[in-house]
């Protein structure tokens, strides 16, 4: 199903390009080149493109978990973006305030600060859901916007704006930065370019570790069992002696922690300061597609993250080489979401002409797409 959704999106996306007078093959060649370093027409450096893709997909590993874990508990966390921004803000504040501290102390501080900020940002919807039943979809959407405006306030005329007049904070201290894999040595040439241009940072290892932790937490701990039980049937979980309210709150706290960590890693590993780039960040929204496409499993999230990282890295090359707007990537992403959610592909498996098509499966809440609970009655899991 996931592969089919991607194929569906590329076919329809290609049609949209063709209808508007573009060449879909040139567009997709540009995407391939920019994302995977394959088939480059204008002398792009393959290694550089692959490293760009890795930088793009690193945070998705964590935000993907931040959406997938609540899915397992029957919760829809649309707030990964706000949680990520909270993490970025906390990392920036700590990284500037204590910029003199050495890396062994400061780096754990900024990462932990970002993690905590994200957890708090997700904890509010968790508590509201568990105590009075406020729908987490709505509360997390609201908190996304609160976070976005908070970032704008902080760096446009607010307390974090650097004195230079740009919409950006001062850089965080050297000790708050995640090391790059490649040394920044102008004399060292790797794959035809100075080593310093490859921006792959050690946050990648943290992201991969996050996936392992996610898998262990879900399948090898009692908390993971409780999360899955609550996701399948709150009533049954309650009869089984599980505190549903506690499980919901803890699930959201952990999810927010992963998002917040992703936000901290973007500051500590890539940007080193909070800029207006974060106004339009979509990492937390991409995570929804990543979690759904990855069917909520660690391995699935890894591959889906690579796909979306490659699409984002490929978009700019496509725009430069083929003259097709990089916003085609958003269109593809939306088409993938439509296709997964609606399961369009079952149309292809319809019986031959003349027979009544088999009825679509009953209610498919998003959470059910990735749990064995697909047969649970509607409303039970959401």
């Amino acid at each position, binding site marked *: 199903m996931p592969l089919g959704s991607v194929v569906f999106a590329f076919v329809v996306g290609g049609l949209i390009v063709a209808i508007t007078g573009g060449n879909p093959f040139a567009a997709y060649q540009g995407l391939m080149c920019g994302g995977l370093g394959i088939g480059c027409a204008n002398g792009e450096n393959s290694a550089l493109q692959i490293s760009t893709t890795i930088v793009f997909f690193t945070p998705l590993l964590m935000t993907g978990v931040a959406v997938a874990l609540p899915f397992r508990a029957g919760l829809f966390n649309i707030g990964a973006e706000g949680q990520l921004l909270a993490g970025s803000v906390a990392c920036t504040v700590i990284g500037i305030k204590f910029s003199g501290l050495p890396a062994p102390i400061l780096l754990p501080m900024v990462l932990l600060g970002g993690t905590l900020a994200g957890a708090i940002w997700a904890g509010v919807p968790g508590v*509201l859901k568990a105590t009075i039943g406020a729908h987490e979809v709505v509360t997390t959407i609201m908190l996304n916007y*609160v976070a976005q405006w*908070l970032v704008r*306030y902080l760096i446009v005329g607010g307390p974090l704006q650097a004195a230079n007049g740009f919409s950006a904070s001062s850089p965080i201290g050297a000790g708050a930065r995640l090391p790059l894999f490649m040394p920044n040595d102008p004399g060292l040439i790797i794959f035809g370019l100075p080593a310093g241009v490859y921006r792959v940072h050690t946050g990648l290892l943290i992201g991969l570790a996050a996936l392992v932790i996610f898998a262990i937490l879900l399948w090898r701990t009692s908390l993971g069992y409780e999360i899955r039980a609550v996701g399948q049937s709150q009533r049954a979980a309650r009869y089984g002696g599980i505190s549903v309210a506690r499980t919901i709150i803890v699930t959201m706290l952990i999810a927010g922690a992963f998002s917040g960590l992703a936000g901290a890693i973007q500051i500590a590993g890539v940007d080193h300061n909070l800029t207006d780039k974060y106004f339009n960040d979509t990492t937390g929204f991409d995570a929804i597609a990543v979690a759904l496409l990855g069917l909520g499993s660690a391995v699935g999230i890894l591959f889906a993250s690579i796909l979306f990282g490659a699409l984002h890295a490929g978009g700019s090359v496509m725009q430069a080489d083929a003259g097709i707007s990089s*916003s085609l*990537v958003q269109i593809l992403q939306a088409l993938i979401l439509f296709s997964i*959610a609606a399961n369009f592909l079952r149309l292809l498996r319809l019986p031959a002409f003349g027979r009544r098509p088999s009825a*679509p499966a009953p209610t*498919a809440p998003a959470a059910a797409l990735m749990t064995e609970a697909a047969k649970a009655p*509607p409303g039970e899991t959401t």
Partner: protein
Amino acid sequence: MSFLADIGHVLLTADLWRATLEAAALLLLPALGGVISERSGVVNIAMEGMMLTGAFFAVVADLALHNPWLAALVGIVAGGLMALIHAVVSIRFRADQIVSGIAINIFAAGLTLFLVQRIYGLQDVGHVGQSELLPYINIPLLDQIPFLGRVLFQQNVVVYAALVLLVLVQLTLFRTRLGLRIRSVGEHPQAADTAGINVYAIRYGAVITSGLLSGLAGAFLAIGISNTFVPNMTDGRGYIALAAMIFGKWTPIGAFIACLIFGLGQAIYDANSVIHVSQYLLSMLPYILTLIVLAGVVGRSIPPAADGIPYAPENE
């Protein structure tokens, strides 16, 4: 204290309240759409994308046809077509309505940006001439009333339309047979089906109506309040409308009151030259207020019972 004095001074001006009503009307249209859609049982978080689509196509049409009325119609239809996608995916295919809504919003943002670059190249979209904008109309005599005349009767034509639609939707939902059907489909579709109501038809109609209303709001934004299309120009207004719908407890009147409160925030934001508080902090207000409402401080806000649950007849 000068801050409070500034606020007090601004609150006394008719211009502030005129701007409040205008901002509220812009939010009210998609909020009404959300109320109708969700009352019929289809969760709609896609007003943002439908508005954006309406804004884009209204500008494209106005630049080509030089007629704001036709342009607004194009914007309305474009919003309706976006809603049709949401309807087909979530009603016919019984998809998760939240995922579909997110997909609509991403799709609209991507498609409008993509088309801007296909149609107009990488430059600006271009500006609509002053005479080709949706007009501001002063109601004769009434506009001469001190204070109130400025606030109520010197407004854009879409503001008047929004107020008429508010009354229409409120009466239709709670005083007509159609309204009863919409609400019964949203509360208990099985029972409605048994009573002979076509659940699918009602839901399709309700979702498409939400798109038409959001499309009108987009046209108002692009060729009434502004005079061009800027990528992502709705800037979260569709989500504020969603907040207004919840804040107003899924009633048109309630949503309108919420829109007035949020609109006042917007108007104060626009009067920023007088008030020395960060616009960005003010922009958080609608979202924080809605969180407070959801937290149960002002009584519970409860959605229709079947909201978000696709309908599958028993006999299938």
